[in-house]
């Protein structure tokens, strides 16, 4: 059963609850209220309160508290409780895993995210390889860091409906989202 779930994650019960193909309202390409191109309040280009480039408190280059290289509590490489190599349940193929999914603009599955703590979200690619993490910058913003703790410039903004949209360093929506 465990092998079946890990081999076909898209088929397990958890995934069904998050699958925009089954619930169109989970997709920003169907549901305008969670689409940043249609709702200015969730778009950092038009709402600077959620824009790390415009709001210094959300910028890890300006605010040490949210920079995992300066604040090691938020660094999975320094804090084992955040590290999926030590905490196996953070890994998407673990039978006990509970997390969210990364989707692309065609609503295709592109990766996974695990909530390591209130402030740290781990991200895994479609091959379930750990390839980075997000650190909370504010109630609505999480900045993306590489495994080595370097800020990539990308960041998540909440969609106000339990999910997130991913933006690049130019604050443009990448069309990737998390549900």
């Amino acid at each position, binding site marked *: 059963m465990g092998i079946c779930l890990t081999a076909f994650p898209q088929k397990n019960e958890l995934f069904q609850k998050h699958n925009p193909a*089954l619930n*169109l309202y989970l997709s920003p*390409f*169907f*549901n*305008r*209220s969670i*689409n940043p191109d*249609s*709702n*200015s*309040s969730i*778009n950092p280009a*038009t*709402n*600077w*309160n959620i824009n790390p480039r*415009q709001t210094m408190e959300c910028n890890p280059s300006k605010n040490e508290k949210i920079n995992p290289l300066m604040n090691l509590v938020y660094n999975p490489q320094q804090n084992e409780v955040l590290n999926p190599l030590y905490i196996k349940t953070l890994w998407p193929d673990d039978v006990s895993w509970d997390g969210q999914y990364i989707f692309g603009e065609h609503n295709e599955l592109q990766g996974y995210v695990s909530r390591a703590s209130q402030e740290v979200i781990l991200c895994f690619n479609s091959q379930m390889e750990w390839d980075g993490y997000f650190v909370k910058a504010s109630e609505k913003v999480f900045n993306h860091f590489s495994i080595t703790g370097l800020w990539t410039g990308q960041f998540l903004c909440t969609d106000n409906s339990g999910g997130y949209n991913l933006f690049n360093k130019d604050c443009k929506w990448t069309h990737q989202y998390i549900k």
Partner: protein
Amino acid sequence: MIKILSIKILIALFFPVICFSQTIPQKHNPKVDPNLSPANNKSINPEKNAAINPKVNWNINPEHNQVINPDTNASINPIIVNDLNPNKNRMLNPMYHNELHPQNPNWEGLYVFDKDDELIGYISSASQNVTLYFDTSYKWLGYFVKSGKGTYNFYNINDQWTGQFGCYDGITGFNFFEKDGEWKGVHVK
């Protein structure tokens, strides 16, 4: 379950985005209420009503009335008075107060029309003295500052007075004039 899924798939194929286009409320739409259109209602048309035409009523023309000209009256100049400047006063800035942005789900404001009553922009009231102007792509283009006598001077995003201004039409909204006082049919309802 399969039937519901099929219906959802059909909707997804034919309506990729369930979006509700920015519909103009009837009380703001000159195409619904002809009384809102200067083309139909002479009393709000500056070409028919001299009282609201700055070319012939210099009291409402900044070029001729120093009181409403920001170059001669500092109290209405946002370069000098920070409270009138969205770039200096975040309370007026739609980038920090998103409810002022026309794409915000809770937005309420006014609508800008051309001479054919086609929608060309949106107006948000940031304060009693400052209104913000957006185009139909929701791009913030500038702001108006109340100058008195029912007039509003228009500034671009860089705080430069363009010389353009709005004048209250006496009844329902205002008309937008070029620097030389010429009206090209642009009106706000």
